[in-house]
């Protein structure tokens, strides 16, 4: 506060109270969301923390890039070389998606618990459930980069390799919605399970191991059971495993599961897989919110 | 046990360490022999970096570190004669205090690990708590058990990183006495701290590190005397403050006087000259000086001067 009505002043450089506009709850959520997305890729931290997320993200794109490369080489030829189909893509990069989630989810849901930052977050204009939902939204968005991104590259790459781009798009227009829907659902499914595990297991190494185990082991067991047991009973194991992703994706693309696939012998209709997937997301998300509502800070 | 030939036990020669673009330690050279030396400096000055280099847990980027005649880097055999008390609080939580020190004794290859462990625990006065697991120790107790583990093999050199962190006054007193005793037995003890009272009380010599450079070394009172561009301040209680003040101001060694309610404060830039002149001036002015004492000859004064240069 300066002295009025004189040529010289003393300026108060001390603490200033902020009286300006505040963004309120949604602003806080948006900030948390962007912050989470950035920290998932290690942006804003030193280089070594970017290695793993970026490596895995690049690996997720590799099949699409191979396809585009081949398409570029054979574009003049008559052959329509499509090694990687949209509906099969997630099957190829499945493990990369799981590893990425296992590496990133503990950073989002576990690190604040370890560093006792939660009290800071919860003393803002942010409901506890908002925190959980913002983290979930961020993780799903980040997974979308690895699911939708390669699919988009594949689509556009195929289109450019084909002789007629606009014709290609007109032909394959019906792929767009399944691509979007499939990517969104798979992302949500992975993100929700990874997040709930990470929120209950703050220690990073354990959470990573359990997340990987949750996906890999369920799939392996379901596969073994399908092969060895009567499929009528074994197929229920599929519903709690990543096989659900295949079920949902094939359903959305309206194709039959290829014969080698684990769900080929199961008798569930696509709607069951869809329901199983959505229920998984809902339950996992609910548990995550419950965890943060209940946690003592 | 002193170093062979009575030479210095620890020698640093132009030692520097940088991390990328950040220079943490900048061409530091000094020599230490038996006795207690305090490593003093603000946070981030490079104390821990220096201690890590001395203890073989960091390679100097330049210069040479010599402890007991050898370089501590990639030289585990040296640990037979060096004890290290690290800063981080964590200890093997599932072991009892006794087991922890015993482990240290065994890993040192001692002939009688159990006896050595018991003695070390007695030295740090943790006999009562030695049977409890260290996971349940208070911070000060963890410090002391770490010291016990570092002493168990009777080392010639003892390096401690912030040993008084978390210790309550009684424990600090106890440890101060312990270190003084160890030093008189011929050991070289180097400890880092930013708790000035402890360093003042314990250290015969200080090394002041500011922003990676060695700002001063030696006895801190002598350092004070070397700080000639900072006026010394004295406080006097006299029979007539104002009259003495008027007489003192006339003398060339006096930079300033301040007449307070009960005390007279005098600032002088020439310590020796003032010390000789003051009684003469007082006698000539017929004023009795009841008390004359220096007020900033504390480590704190020295320290803030060196830090703010």
């Amino acid at each position: 506060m300066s002295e009025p009505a004189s040529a010289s002043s003393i300026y108060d450089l001390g603490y200033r109270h902020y009286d300006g506009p505040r963004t309120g709850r949604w602003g806080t959520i948006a900030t948390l969301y962007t912050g989470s997305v950035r920290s998932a890729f290690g942006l804003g931290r030193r280089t070594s923390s970017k290695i793993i997320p970026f490596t895995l993200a690049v690996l997720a794109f590799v099949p699409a890039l191979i396809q585009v490369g081949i398409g570029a080489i054979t574009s003049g030829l008559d052959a329509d070389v499509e090694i990687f189909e949209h509906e099969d893509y997630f099957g190829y990069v499945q493990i990369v998606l799981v590893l990425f989630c296992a590496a990133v989810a503990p950073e989002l849901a576990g690190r604040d618990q370890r560093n006792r930052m939660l009290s800071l977050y919860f003393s803002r204009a942010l409901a506890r459930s908002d925190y959980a939902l913002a983290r979930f939204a961020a993780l799903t968005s980040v997974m979308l980069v690895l699911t939708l991104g390669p699919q988009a590259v594949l689509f556009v790459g195929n289109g450019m390799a084909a002789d007629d781009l606009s014709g290609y798009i007109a032909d394959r227009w019906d792929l767009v919605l399944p691509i979007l829907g499939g990517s969104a659902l798979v992302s949500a499914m992975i993100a929700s399970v990874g997040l709930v595990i990470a929120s209950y297991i703050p220690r990073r190494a354990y959470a990573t191991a359990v997340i990987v185990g949750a996906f890999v082991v369920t799939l392996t067991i379901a596969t073994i059971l399908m092969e060895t047991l009567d499929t009528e009973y074994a197929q229920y194991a599929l519903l709690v495993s990543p096989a659900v992703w295949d079920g949902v994706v094939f359903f959305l693309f309206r194709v039959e599961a290829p014969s080698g696939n684990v769900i080929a012998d199961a008798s569930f209709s696509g709607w069951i897989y869809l329901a199983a997937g959505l229920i998984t997301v809902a339950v996992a998300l609910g548990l995550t919110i419950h965890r943060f509502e209940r946690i003592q800070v | 046990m002193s170093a062979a030939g009575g030479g210095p036990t620890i020698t640093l020669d132009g030692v520097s360490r940088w991390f990328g673009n950040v220079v943490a330690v900048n061409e530091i050279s000094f020599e230490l022999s038996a006795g207690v030396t305090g490593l003093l400096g603000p946070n981030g000055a490079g104390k821990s970096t220096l201690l890590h280099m001395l203890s073989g847990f960091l390679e100097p980027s330049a210069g040479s570190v010599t402890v007991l005649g050898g370089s501590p880097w990639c030289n585990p055999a040296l640990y037979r004669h060096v004890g290290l008390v690290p800063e981080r609080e964590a200890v093997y939580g599932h072991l009892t205090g006794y087991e922890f020190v015993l482990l240290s004794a065994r890993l040192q290859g001692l002939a009688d690990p159990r006896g050595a462990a018991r003695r070390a625990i007695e030295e740090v006065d943790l006999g009562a708590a030695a049977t409890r697991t260290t996971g349940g120790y208070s911070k000060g107790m963890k410090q002391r058990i770490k010291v016990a583990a570092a002493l168990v093999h009777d080392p010639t050199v003892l390096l401690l990183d912030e040993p008084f962190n978390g210790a309550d006054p009684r424990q600090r007193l106890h440890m101060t006495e312990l270190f003084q005793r160890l030093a008189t037995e011929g050991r070289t003890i180097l400890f880092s701290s930013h708790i000035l009272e402890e360093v003042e009380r314990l250290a015969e010599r200080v090394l002041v590190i500011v922003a990676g450079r060695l700002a001063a070394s030696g006895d801190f009172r002598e350092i004070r005397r070397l700080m000639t561009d900072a006026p010394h301040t004295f406080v006097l209680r006299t029979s007539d403050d104002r009259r003495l003040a008027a007489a003192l101001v006339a003398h060339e060694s006096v930079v300033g006087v301040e007449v307070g309610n009960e005390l007279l404060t005098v600032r002088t830039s020439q310590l020796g000259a003032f010390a000789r002149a003051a009684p003469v001036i007082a006698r000539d002015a017929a004023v009795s000086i009841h008390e004359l004492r220096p007020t900033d000859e504390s480590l704190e004064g020295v320290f803030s001067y060196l830090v703010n240069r």
Partner: protein
Amino acid sequence: MTGIILRLTLRQMLGRGRTILIGLLALLPVLVALVYRLGSQDTEQQEWAATVLLDGFVVTTLLPLAALVYGTAALGVEIEDGTAVYLLSKPILRRRIVLAKITASWMVTTATVLSSGLVAGAIALYDKPKAGILLGFGVGILLGGLVYSALFVMLSVVTSRALIAGLIYVFIWEGLVNGLFAGTRLLSVRHYTLGVADWFVDLPPSAFDAALDPATALVLMVVFGAAATWYADRRLQRFEIGETT
């Protein structure tokens, strides 16, 4: 000296969370084998036991994951929380410390995976001729566990994110890359394990076939394991406590 470190590490490694996690994982093959015997009409038990159960689950998933969890815990936990200093500031050759850690990890990994695999295999092959399956996979797990342990202890010295790096190795390198590029199997502990097992397993190639022949697998195991151990020793000798953060 090594014995002391070994005992200390064993005590630390068998912490509650870790034991439960790997214990549950180790139960699965046994359960699956039980379900198989009770439920399935399959007549090719030997093929199933070798290819699906022991190769497909125990060696491919259980063994590396167990070795990973224990191998990264052996030294990784101490490095992370700062207690490694107490071990490293002693007049002990770093290679002794590395060897002790690897041995501890190997002991626990092998104990878990071997018992799981052998019990599950025995159940699956209950009244059938064993055809060297149990022996072969037993030896394979024993040796493979050692090489995995060396690899993962080395990783935990080199990086603080050893667990995820190990997971990438197991699932992407040994999973995807080895599957796509046959040549890379020369650098895969899993294929060394299967190669060694193949020496004892007396089944036709249609039932069980390893990509590497036993002699190659054994030699490469020794080379790989020795290299990992040597590198871990070298890095631990030059272990630095740097800037915190």
